[in-house]
């Protein structure tokens, strides 16, 4: 009853109605503004070259074809090789999966120590680790190249994984540490008295309640590492290039005609994994970030 009354009063107020309309209009315009480029990419990737040359940018394809997608995946020329971005895509997967896994697990362990097993100077360690969040990528290119060279993992996927793990640790540590400080210390004390040690408490008590922050860390790291171009172009050799670098090379390799449909298809393929991660786990992402922010 009361609700109905409230709704009626709301309906009667012209100012409120106008506000709603304005709000939705702005939101819809913003959504269209951000979605149109994606729409253009998808439409273009489904067109034939002839269609692109003669038609309009946002006109519907006269003939829907997946040829451009097949070419981008399997036979487009990148440099001198004409095998598509398939191999580079798997390079990225081979790089992202271990890099995300290692940096997340190490971040969890770091966060656990910095929040529940503080030691003399641990705050200083933590703050200096946080500095890592603010170092621009470009600054470390040269020293990192020389380090990778000395370690003998330059120009390889292993080298790229190493770089991303090191760079990601600052962020993952911050995530986990801030999440774990909201877990009551009494839990750890109780487990200590129950006889559990450092690792048993981590496995049995802390990790099972860490799922939200794991999701946050995995999404963040996957996006960062998958989308990275600079490290990819600087530290990878011809065969170990990630898909971002390959995409750039594909677009820049010209053999006469510029195949916009193939470029678009390749760009979408390169972007699909991060989109997928957001759509599947985005809900948890927000929840996890909030869980870290609000105590209790």
């Amino acid at each position, binding site marked *: 009853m009361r609700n109905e009354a409230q709704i009626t009063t709301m309906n009667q107020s012209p100012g409120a109605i106008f506000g709603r309309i304005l709000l939705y209009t702005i939101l819809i315009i913003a959504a269209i503004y951000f979605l149109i480029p994606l729409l253009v990419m998808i439409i273009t990737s489904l067109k034939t070259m002839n269609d692109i040359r003669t038609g309009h940018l946002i006109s519907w394809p006269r003939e829907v074809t997946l040829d451009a997608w097949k070419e981008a995946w399997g036979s487009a020329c990148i440099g001198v090789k004409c095998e598509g971005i398939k191999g580079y895509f798997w390079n990225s997967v081979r790089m992202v999966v271990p890099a995300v896994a290692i940096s997340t697990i190490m971040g969890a362990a770091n966060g656990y120590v910095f929040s529940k097993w503080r030691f003399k100077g641990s705050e200083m360690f933590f703050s200096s680790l946080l500095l890592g969040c603010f170092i621009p990528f470009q600054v470390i290119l040269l020293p990192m190249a020389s380090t990778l060279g000395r370690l003998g993992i330059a120009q390889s996927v292993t080298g790229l994984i190493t770089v991303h793990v090191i760079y990601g640790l600052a962020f993952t540590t911050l995530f986990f540490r801030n999440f774990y400080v909201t877990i009551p210390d*009494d*839990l750890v*004390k*109780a*487990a*200590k008295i*129950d*006889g559990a*040690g450092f690792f048993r408490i981590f496995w049995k*008590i802390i990790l099972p309640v860490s799922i939200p922050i794991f999701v946050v860390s995995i999404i963040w790291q996957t996006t960062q590492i998958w989308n990275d171009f600079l490290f990819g172009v600087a530290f990878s050799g011809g065969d170990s290039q990630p898909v971002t670098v390959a995409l750039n090379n594909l677009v820049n390799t010209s053999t006469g005609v510029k195949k916009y449909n193939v470029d678009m298809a390749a760009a979408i393929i390169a972007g699909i994994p991060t989109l997928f991660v957001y759509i599947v786990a985005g809900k948890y992402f927000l929840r996890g970030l909030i869980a870290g922010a609000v105590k209790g």
Partner: protein
Amino acid sequence: MASLTITNVKKAFGSTEVLKGITLRIESGELLVLVGPSGCGKSTLLNLIAGLESITSGEIKIGDRVVNNIRPKDRDIAMVFQSYALYPNMNVRKNLAFGLETRRVPRAQIEETIQKVANVLQISELLDRKPSQLSGGQRQRVAMGRALARDPAIFLFDEPLSNLDAKLRVEMRTEIKLLHQRIKTTIVYVTHDQIEAMTLADRIAIMKDGTIQQFDTPHQIYENPSNLFVAGFIGSPSMNFIPCRIATHGQQNGVFLETGNGRSYFLPIEQPGLALDPWIDSEVILGIRPEMISHGFAGQKGNPQIHEIESIVKVLEPTGPDTLVFVNINGKEVTCRANPSAAKPPGEIMKLMVDMSKTILFDPQTEELIGKSTTPPFQVGLEKRK
């Protein structure tokens, strides 16, 4: 089951000294309550006993074993936390089993222990629930169950009832007392609630600013508080403190009480072992509990210790069984406890009987108890204060 001996334990965080030399000892099976206002160091002391923090100096012995450098898990203790600290990802059964599993107790034995503990605490039907699905009182029981399952030498309780509502708190208090009578294990119990301390304890250690003010049985602490702080802390409503001067009146030592409108009464103080001669003409603080000033004491007619005074009633506070009557004596507000039917309305003059047999005197300078030599059974507990 073990005794607990704490000898001159000090704890400092950086330059702040939180515990300034704590000494006490309880026998096996006793329930010790550490009580005091916030920041007095009681929880720190409990953490030291548990081994969750390290001692700066001194010695803690559980049974005959010095545990200073022994890790919490090897001290044979169990602890109940104020926040309960139940493992949120495990159901009740696993919460109870965790400590046993960690200690590699055989499966069958764990199962048996869980059943036994669940029966004692009446949580059998909760075994498959997660902590988030339990009410405050149920969580409290599970937290106690987790400690019980371990069957430790000493139980440590860190303000276990302060997260419960008033009614449940009283119920759980009784249950803890019953539990202790049944299992007869040594318990150290921290609280800031003096009623919890009085009702539960075999011995109370009252702490303030990192020192023990008095370490004694609840009865002794109530009857013979060693200083003003203890006297004011224990008892509700608190003891009245009336400033007065010791005088001699017809061979008797006593005090004059002025109750307003020119009324003045001489009340002799005669207690065995209390030598007042050195204090004649000196200022003292008279400590008298509200129940010692009343409308009358049944069956006490002719008792030479009971004296009649009159005073104007300022305020009445009915509590149900008794009504608290507030009057002015020697310029101080004094609480008296009277029968509701005998209490006069505010503004009227009321006759009050004062039982002087249990009054105590404090030195206003040192705030220490005067005269009576209170020799508690265990003198070590009394760190000498300056």
